[in-house]
């Protein structure tokens, strides 16, 4: 069981990282989207491993089933063969790479230094069994205000997207 979990975790992690790298480097956007979907699914799998089933479903429905469909849709709407022929990286790539690595090195250092103090609490059995209800309770009681704010954010985003896409600017 433990071994299976470990194997699954490493497999999914590797899948996520590799497809993330591939996504960033692919010339063809559609391929990039495919790899991103793969990454997201791998992440979802990790959520499932953590017994966060609801999160898994949300990840799949919203990210993969919703947001990425939108992305793919837009990609196909605006797909330009011309852009495939152009160089895919911008002028600041070397500086940017170095800086990004520096940043990640810092974060690495931070995590390394604090790794021993980090551990997830053991989930209570009741929560593990009824994950969805637990999430729902948390959302609608403790995080009620953030939830409402998020819904307003979504509304604003929806209006903004409609305006952006509809008006001839």
């Amino acid at each position, binding site marked *: 069981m433990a071994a299976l979990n470990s194997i699954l975790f490493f497999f999914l992690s590797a899948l996520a990282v590799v497809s993330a790298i591939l996504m960033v480097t692919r010339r063809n956007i559609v391929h990039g989207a495919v790899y991103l979907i793969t990454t997201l699914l791998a992440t979802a799998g990790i959520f499932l491993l953590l017994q966060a089933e609801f999160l898994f479903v949300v990840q799949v429905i919203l990210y993969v089933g919703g947001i990425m469909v939108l992305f793919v849709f837009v990609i196909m709407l605006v797909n330009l063969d011309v852009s495939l022929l152009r160089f895919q990286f911008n002028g600041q790539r070397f*500086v940017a790479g170095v800086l990004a690595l520096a*940043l990640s090195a*810092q974060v690495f250092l931070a995590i390394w230094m604090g790794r021993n103090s980090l551990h997830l609490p053991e989930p209570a059995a009741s929560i593990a069994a009824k994950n969805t209800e637990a999430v729902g309770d948390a959302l609608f009681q403790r995080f009620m205000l953030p939830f409402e704010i998020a819904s307003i954010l979504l509304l604003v985003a929806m209006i903004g997207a409609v305006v952006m896409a509809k008006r001839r600017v």
Partner: protein
Amino acid sequence: MNAHPFFLGHVWLIPLFPLLTAAAMLFIGRRLNNSAVNALCCGSVFASFIFSVGAFLQLIALPSEERLVTSVLFEWIPALPFHMLNGRLANFVADFGFQIDPLSCVMILIVTGVGFLIHVYSTGYMAHEGGYYRFFGYLNLFMFSMLILVLANNLVMLFVGWEGVGTCSYLLIGFYFHRKSASDAGKKAFIVNRIGDAGFLLGIFLTSALLGTIRFAEIGPALAAGHFAMGDPLLTAIALLFFVGATGKSAQIPLYVWLPDAMEGPTPVSALIHAATMVTAGVYMVTRTNAIYQLAPKAMALVALVGAVTALFAASIGVVQTDIKKVLAYSTVSQLGYMFLACGVGAFTAGIFHLMTHAFFKGLLFLAAGSVIHALSGEQDMRKMGALSKKIPVTYWTMLIATLAIAGIFPFAGFLSKDLILGKAYEKDALLWAIGYFTAGMTAFYMFRLIFMTFHGTSRVDHDVEHHIHESPKSMLIPLLILAGLSIAGGWLSWPEIFGGNSRFVRFLEPVIATTQLARPEPTHGPGSPHGEIYLMLLSEGLVVLGICFAWYLYIKRTELPGKIAKSLGGFYRLVYHKYYVDQLYDALFVNRAKDLGLALGVFDTTVINGVGVNGAGWLTRFISSLSMWWDTWIVDGSIRLGSRIVWLFSYPVRLIQDGLVQSYMLLIVVGLIGFLGYYFYLGHHAVR
């Protein structure tokens, strides 16, 4: 005010009706069809006529001494204190008020009655003209102004009406504005009237300054209170100034020149404005202010003289005119002269009486002439008429009645009024009587010359016109018939006492004539007795018949004679034919001089005002502003530019960072993040220590 009976209390409605329809015509008339225009305009005038009749009936129901009803709607020009000539303080107040007394009552009856008939006539006469609604709009506006004029209770209100009728006269003379002669005639009428109006206005000022009031009802008491002597020079001046105004409006020497030209207007206009109503405004005004005149005998003498001379002078021009309307125009001038003669000899009631009868028969004459012109498709030259009596019989008979009336045949209206004047003149001065007497003969001559040339003899009508000769429509003929009836019977209102009458009309007007008149000196010579009056009448009848016979002889019997006479008279004929060259004289003396003045002023404007004043000022401004500009450009702007340049220089490196690319901003975010984290590491490091 409300105590008065209905019509007397609502006298202000009389001018209101035409005003409303005039406004309607001028604002929305374009959208109305002709029958709607007819209904509105004739209807409104008829309503005024009904109210006038009502007012008249209610007025004569009052006792004779109470026949003065004033209704002030509001105080138009509020009280302004000023010093009178005698140093006392007085208030200048002009009411928007109406006054109805026998005089204005007679006037409104004439104006609305004759006006209504002429309106009806116009619906036929103008039926095929363009600008139908505009014509009726002007006509109604004229009715309004004229009614204001005769109903006004003070001089300023009267002046408003006075100017209003002048304006409408101008508009209607120039009704065919696309014809240059018409618009010129309109302007001429307007400008000539201005001269008279200036005198009138001055008269009003002087009245106000001298008497402290401009209300008619208060002038008499003011005169009485002022203890003015007979022949007071200021009163004489006022009377003369008023008379200047009257000569303008009523076409007397020397300002008569506009009236013949005014015949350019449509014939109903000539009938209504330039025969029946407006031109008599001068007579009305003199009568209205008779209290002043009676204290200024010299002015009265001048009025009488001018009237008499004008009568003779105009009649002599009328003798040789060939345009049918011009003949009638000079005849009008001549008859107006009679009226002033009457006023001048103190017979104001006689003048008004003649005014009324003249309105009937001269209105009829013009309308009949219009009917003739209508029948001849617009022909006005009498030399191209003749033998029309059978073709247009109604017109012929009505016109003949009017001619008999104006010629003074017993018992037509003209005879009664004219003989009343002549009788009074004879009482006053034999010379004036002689002029009037001779003029009466000439009047008979030229009027019958008109009749004979138009209706009798051989036809000289153009061939292509001859086929179209037709009697006018009923809407034109019915007014003719009504006016013919009035021309016969209108004078009987004042049936002379010597014929067993009671001079009711003159008695009716008596209260208006100031009672302040001093005892007149006994006439040096005059009829003295009823028999004398009879003799005078017979004498004038004789002359009139002679004139008619003479006309018949010249224009029916021996048609070649007039040409020979004209040739034998030579220079004198030309002088008369060209109206004594008065127009040319005025042109040379005043009009061209005014034009010269205008040109000179124009030159002055271009050279001095424009050249030195405007351009010089402009140059100066430019010069100063160029200096200012230099300062602005180099000192003010320069300092700002320097500042901005410095800011620009310092901002340039910062600007390089902000290149508009999202990704480089994000790079900067990353740099910032690195810095933050590094700082925290640094802090942590020290904290550990």
